[in-house]
C-alpha cells in the first residue's frame, strides 16, 4: 500500500515505487516533489517543470491511474505508487498513437507542454474512447500551451482516438 514511509537518517528517505512499469528504490532528499525526483534523481527529464505552483500542467504525470501535477506531490507520498511518465508511452521503437499524431499534426511547437498534454490525453482516452471536441477541451483545461493555439492538439487527439478505436 502506498504511503508507508521509510525514513533513512536525517533529511533523506528511501523511496520505492514503480516508474513506467519498473520497480525503483532510491534514496532522495525528503523535501523533494515527485517532479524533482523524476527529473533530478531518475534523469527522466521528459516531465517538464513550468510554474511549479499547479498553474500550468507541464508536470502532469499519471499516479496510480489518474493524472496529477507532479510539482505538488511530495515524493514521500509516492511509496508503493505506480507512476507513468511520457518516457513510458512508446513501446520499444513504436510511438504511442498520440505521440505519432502530435508529431503529424504539428501539435508541438516548443514542446514544453507536450508531455503533460500527452498524458492528460492518454488518461482521457482510457475512459472515453470517442471524446467530443468539447470533452477534450475540458479534460485538458489545466494544460496550458503558449504556442499552438490548441487546435492542432485537439485534432491530434481526435485522430489518435480514431486510430485507437480502429476507425481509420
Amino acid at each position, binding site marked *: 500500500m*502506498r*504511503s*508507508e*514511509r521509510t*525514513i533513512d537518517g536525517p*533529511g533523506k*528517505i528511501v523511496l520505492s515505487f514503480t516508474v513506467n512499469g519498473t520497480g525503483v528504490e532510491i534514496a532522495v*532528499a*525528503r*523535501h*523533494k*516533489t515527485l517532479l*524533482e525526483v523524476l527529473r533530478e534523481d531518475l534523469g527522466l527529464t521528459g516531465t517538464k*517543470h513550468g510554474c*511549479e*505552483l*499547479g*498553474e500550468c*500542467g507541464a508536470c*502532469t504525470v499519471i499516479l496510480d491511474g*489518474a*493524472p*496529477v*501535477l507532479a510539482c*505538488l*506531490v*511530495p515524493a*514521500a*507520498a509516492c511509496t508503493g505508487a505506480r507512476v507513468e511518465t511520457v518516457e513510458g508511452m512508446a513501446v520499444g521503437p513504436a510511438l504511442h498513437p498520440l505521440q505519432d499524431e502530435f508529431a503529424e499534426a504539428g501539435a508541438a511547437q516548443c514542446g514544453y507542454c507536450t508531455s503533460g498534454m500527452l498524458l*492528460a490525453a492518454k488518461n482521457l482516452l482510457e475512459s472515453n474512447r470517442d471524446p467530443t471536441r468539447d470533452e477534450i477541451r*475540458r*479534460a485538458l*483545461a*489545466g494544460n*496550458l500551451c503558449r504556442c499552438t493555439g490548441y487546435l492542432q492538439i485537439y485534432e491530434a487527439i481526435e485522430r489518435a482516438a480514431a486510430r485507437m478505436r480502429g476507425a481509420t
Partner: protein
Amino acid sequence: MLRLPDFQYHAPRTVEEAVALKVKHGANAAFVAGGTDLLPNMKRRIRKCGHLVDVSHIDELRSAGAFEGGLRLGAAVSLEEAASNEAVRTVCPAYAEAALLVATPTIRRMGTVGGNLCLDTRCLFYNQSYEWRKGIDFCMKADGTICRVAESSPKCIAVSSSDTAPVALAAGATIELCGPGGKRAVSADSFYLGDGIDYMAKKEDELLTALVIPDQTGAQSAYVKVRARGSIDFPVIGVAVWMRRRSSDAPVEDARVVLGAVFPDPREVPAAAEALIGRALDAESIRDAADAAFRAAKPVDNTDGALSWRKEMIRVSTKRALERLGSAR
C-alpha cells in the same frame, strides 16, 4: 526550481492518529490533503511546516453520499468525486456545480472537500514568492506588519476564495471537526470568522472530518462564478443562492444569498434574502435581491479585475443565479 522547505511526511490511517501527530508536532505541523493550496504556499515560504500530516489515506474521511435526507461528504473526498456523485447532484446541485468550477480537472482530482473549505484566504500581495513579498517589505498576513491593500486597516482583508464554502453556508451545512478534546460540529455560518488571518473557527489541532448538508427536501440552490479564465482561475466573484418554496408559483418561504470572493469570509446577505421571502420569484423580486447583494458587497482591490466591474458583477451574478432557480421548475 521552486523547492519545498524541508519537512517530514506522515501518512496516518485514522483520525485519532492524525490528530495525535498534529498535537505532537504543534504549530510546526500541518494537515495536508490534496496539497494544492498548502504546497504552493510552502514553496512561497508563506507556510513553514516541518511535518506534513497527510489525511488523504484515512478511510473514514473518504466516503460521500446521502445522509438523513441531505448529504455527508468526508473531508478527503476529492472535488471530482463529489461533483460527479449522483446523490450530491440530486440533493444539492449547487455543491456539485461549485466543486466542478474549482480550478482544473487535475486539481479537482487532487483537491478535497475539506481542503477547499479550509482554503487559505488569498490576496495579490500575499500569494507571491518570498522574494516578491520581501520586495514590498511583506504584509501583516505573513512576515510583515501592515496591510498593503489598506495601510490603515487594523486587520487583514484577504479574500475567502473557496468555491464550495458559499454553497455550504447557503445550504445551511454543518462542519464536523475532531480534535484532541473530541468531536464537535459547527454551522458553516459560524465556521468562518471574517478576518483574513484568523479566517476559520477550527482550532489549530482540529481535523475537519466532514461536511454535512441537511435535508434539502423542497429546496433549490445554484452557484454562479465569475473568473478571469474559465478553465482554471479562482473566483473573483462567487454567488450561492438557496431557497425553499412549495411550487414554482408559490411565494418563497425561506432564502439565503451568500457572496464568495468578496470578504475574508463567505458572506451571507440577509437583505437579499428578505427581498425574496414572501414574494414570488419573478423579475421584480430578483432585481431587488440582486440590488441588495450589490449594496452589501464591498470588494477591495486585492484580486483580479477592476473593483467597479467586480461590484457590478455581484449584481449580475446574483440575478443569474436566481434566474436559474426560476427556470429550474
